[in-house]
C-alpha cells in the first residue's frame, strides 16, 4: 500500500493515473481489451459532449424547413438511420441519448460514491451497533433485484411525470440506492482491514483524532479500488437506466432522448419488420456498456496478480509490483453484483 510507494521512485502524476498506469503494465490481449475499452468510452463521452454539433436534428424535432418528417421511414439520405413511429430522427435520438446517459452516470455515481464511501468509512472504523444495522440493511438491499428497487424508487420520486432534470434525478437516485450498498461493503471491508495496520495504530498513539485518521490515513488507502468500481457501476447505471426507460419509467421523449425508451417503442415495430428503430439505440447501449466494462475488467485483471498476464519478465520494471499486492476480491469476480 503506502509503504512500497515510499521505497519505489515516485512516478510522475500522469503515469500514476488509474487507466494510464494500467495501460503501461498491460501486455498483449489485455492491452488490446483495455485500448478498445478506452476508445469506446472516449467515443461515448465525446459524443455526449458534442451532441449538439453531431446530431443532424434535435431529439424531439418532428419537422424541418422542408416539412414534417415522414414516420417509420427506412434509413435514407435525409435520415441516415431512418425515423420512428412518432417521426423522430433515429440518428439524432441515438446521439442525444448519450448525453442523457452520461448525465445519469455522473449524478448517480457521484451520489453513491459520496454516500457509500462515507457510510463505509464510518461503519468500518467505529463498528458497534451502527455498523451492525448498516450491514444488515446493506445486505438486505444488496440481495434485492436491483431493477425492482429502481422501479419502486423511481415511482416514488417521479410518479410518472418527468421533465429532463426530474427524470434524470429519479433515474440517478434509483441507481444510487442500488449502488450505495456495494460501495459501502467494499469500503467497509477495506476500512476494517486498514484499521489493524500499524500506521493507523501509530497515528492513534500520536493522538490523531478519529476524523483525521479516517480522512487522511484510511480514506486514501481504502479508495484504491474505486476506479474499478466506478467503471463497473457506470456500465450498470446505463443498463438500469435503459431498463427503467424500457419499462416506461424513463424520461419523456420530449424532454430528452433515452435509449431504453426508444427500444420500448421499437418493440412494436419489430413484428412488421422495421429494424432500424430498435437496432441502433440498442447498439449504442451495447457499445457504451462494452467500452466501460472492458476498461473496468482490464483494471480488475491488472490489479489481480493471479490473473494478470504472466509474460512480463523484461520490459516494464518495478512499478507493476506496488500496484496491488493484496487486492480484495472485487465484485466483478463474484459475478455481476
Amino acid at each position: 500500500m503506502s509503504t512500497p510507494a515510499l521505497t519505489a521512485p515516485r512516478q510522475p502524476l500522469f503515469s500514476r493515473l488509474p487507466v494510464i498506469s494500467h495501460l503501461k503494465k498491460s501486455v498483449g490481449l489485455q492491452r488490446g481489451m483495455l485500448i478498445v475499452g478506452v476508445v469506446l468510452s472516449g467515443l461515448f463521452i465525446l459524443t455526449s459532449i458534442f451532441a449538439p454539433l453531431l446530431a443532424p436534428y434535435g431529439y424531439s424535432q418532428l419537422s424541418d424547413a422542408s416539412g414534417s418528417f415522414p414516420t417509420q421511414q427506412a434509413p435514407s439520405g435525409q435520415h441516415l438511420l431512418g425515423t420512428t413511429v412518432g417521426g423522430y430522427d433515429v440518428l439524432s435520438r441515438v446521439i442525444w441519448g448519450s448525453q442523457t446517459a452520461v448525465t445519469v452516470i455522473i449524478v448517480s455515481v457521484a451520489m453513491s460514491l459520496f454516500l457509500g464511501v462515507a457510510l463505509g468509512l464510518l461503519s468500518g472504523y467505529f463498528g458497534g451497533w451502527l455498523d451492525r444495522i448498516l450491514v444488515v440493511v446493506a445486505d438486505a438491499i444488496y440481495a434485492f433485484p436491483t431493477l425492482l428497487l429502481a422501479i419502486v424508487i423511481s415511482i416514488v420520486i417521479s410518479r410518472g411525470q418527468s421533465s429532463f432534470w426530474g427524470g434524470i434525478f429519479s433515474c440517478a437516485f434509483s441507481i444510487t440506492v442500488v449502488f450505495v450498498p456495494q460501495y459501502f461493503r467494499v469500503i467497509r471491508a477495506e476500512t476494517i482491514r486498514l484499521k489493524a495496520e500499524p500506521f493507523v495504530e501509530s497515528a492513534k498513539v500520536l493522538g490523531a483524532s478519529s476524523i483525521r485518521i479516517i480522512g487522511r490515513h484510511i480514506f486514501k488507502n481504502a479508495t484504491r479500488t474505486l476506479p474499478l468500481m466506478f467503471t463497473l457501476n457506470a456500465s450498470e447505471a446505463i443498463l438500469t437506466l435503459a431498463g427503467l426507460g424500457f419499462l416506461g419509467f424513463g424520461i419523456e421523449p420530449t424532454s430528452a432522448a433515452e435509449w431504453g425508451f426508444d427500444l420500448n417503442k421499437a418493440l412494436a415495430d419489430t413484428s412488421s419488420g422495421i429494424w432500424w428503430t430498435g437496432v441502433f439505440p440498442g447498439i449504442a447501449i451495447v457499445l457504451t456498456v462494452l467500452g466501460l466494462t472492458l476498461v473496468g475488467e482490464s483494471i480488475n485483471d491488472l490489479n489481480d496478480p493471479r490473473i494478470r498476464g504472466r509474460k512480463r519478465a523484461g520490459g516494464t520494471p518495478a512499478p507493476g509490483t506496488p500496484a496491488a499486492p493484496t487486492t480484495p476480491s472485487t465484485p466483478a469476480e463474484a459475478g455481476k453484483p
Partner: protein
Amino acid sequence: MTTLIEVPEAEPGIVAPKSKSKAGGGLGRYIVIRFFLIIPTVFILVTLVFFLMRVIGDPITASQGGRLPPDVLAQRIHDAGYDRPILIQYFEYLGQLITGNFGTTITDRRPVVEVLTTFGAATLELSINALIVALAVGIPFGLIAAQHRDRTPDAFLRFFAILCYATPVFFSGLLLKLTFSVWLGWFPVAGRASTRTELAMSSLEAPSGIYWLDAIRSGNFAALGDIVSHAVLPAIALGLLTAGVFLRLVRTNVIGTLGKDYIEAGRSRGVSEFRLVTKHAYKPALIPIITVMGLQIALMLGGAILTETTFEWKGLGYQLVQYLNARDFVAVQGIVVLLAIIVAVTNFVVDIIAALIDPRVRY
C-alpha cells in the same frame, strides 16, 4: 464468494443457539442461524417498500384519483383505512403479512397471493429454461476458455462473455425476435404458447402451471412442440445474460485451481491436459458457481421482468408492469414484497446447498 461469507458474519451473536451436538453438528447450527437471518432481511425490505410506497400518498388516490368525484374518493379512502396514522397502517400490514395476506389489488380486486400463484409458474418456467441455457453455455465455454488461457479461443470467449453482460435482455430479445421470428419465421414472435395449447393446458386437472411439465405429464406432444418453440427465444435472451457471468466465473476458478499443487502432481504423473481440466480442476471450481447462482436469482428476476415484457410472456414480471402502468400500488407492493421473500428464501437454500458441498462454509 464474498456474499456468502459476509452473511453469517453479520449477526453471529443474536441467534447462535448453544448447540449441544458435537463437532459434526456444525451444519445444523449453521442452518438455524442462516434461517433466522432471513427475518431481518425480509423485515427491512418490507419496511422500506411500505414507507416508500406511502410517501407518494395513499394507493386509492394514486390509481383512481381524477376518475372519481372527491367525496367518493374520500369515502373509499376512509373505508380502506388509508386515512389512519401511518404507523397503525404499518403494523396492520405487518400483521397481515404474517397471516399470509398480501393485500388485494385495487384495479381488478384479486388477492395478491392469487396473482402470484397464477403467474408465478410462468416466471419460474422462464427462469428454469434460462438457467438451463446459462449452464449449458457458461460451463463448457468457461472450461474451454480456461484451458486455452490467453490464447485466441480464450480472447474470443471472454469477449463473448462481456458482450453477454453488455447486451440488455430487451435488446437481445428484440434482435432474436427480428432475426428468428420475423425474418426467418422459425419461432413465434411472442407469448408462452398458441391459444389452442393454452386452452389445453388450462383444462388439465391440477396443472403445475409449468407448461412443458404439464404437456409431458398429459402426453400431449403436439402441445409440447408448440411450447418449446415459444420458449426458445425468451430462454436464450435471458439465459445469455447469466451465461456470461457463469463463463467468467468458471474460467477464473478453473484457472485458479489449475495452478494448485495437486494439478501439477497429476500432470507430472502423465494425466492428460484435457482430463486435468474436465476432471480435476473442474469440480472444486463449481462451488463458487453454486454460491453465485444465489445472486443470479436476483439478477434473473430483474431480467425476467424485462424478458417477459419483451416477449409478452404472461408471468409475474409482465403482470407487475401492467399494475405499474395502472398505478395499482397495492398490487405492486404485494408483488415486490413477495419477490423479496422469494429471493431471501432462495438465497437461504443456496447457502445451505453450498454448506452441504463445502464444509468450510459452515462456521
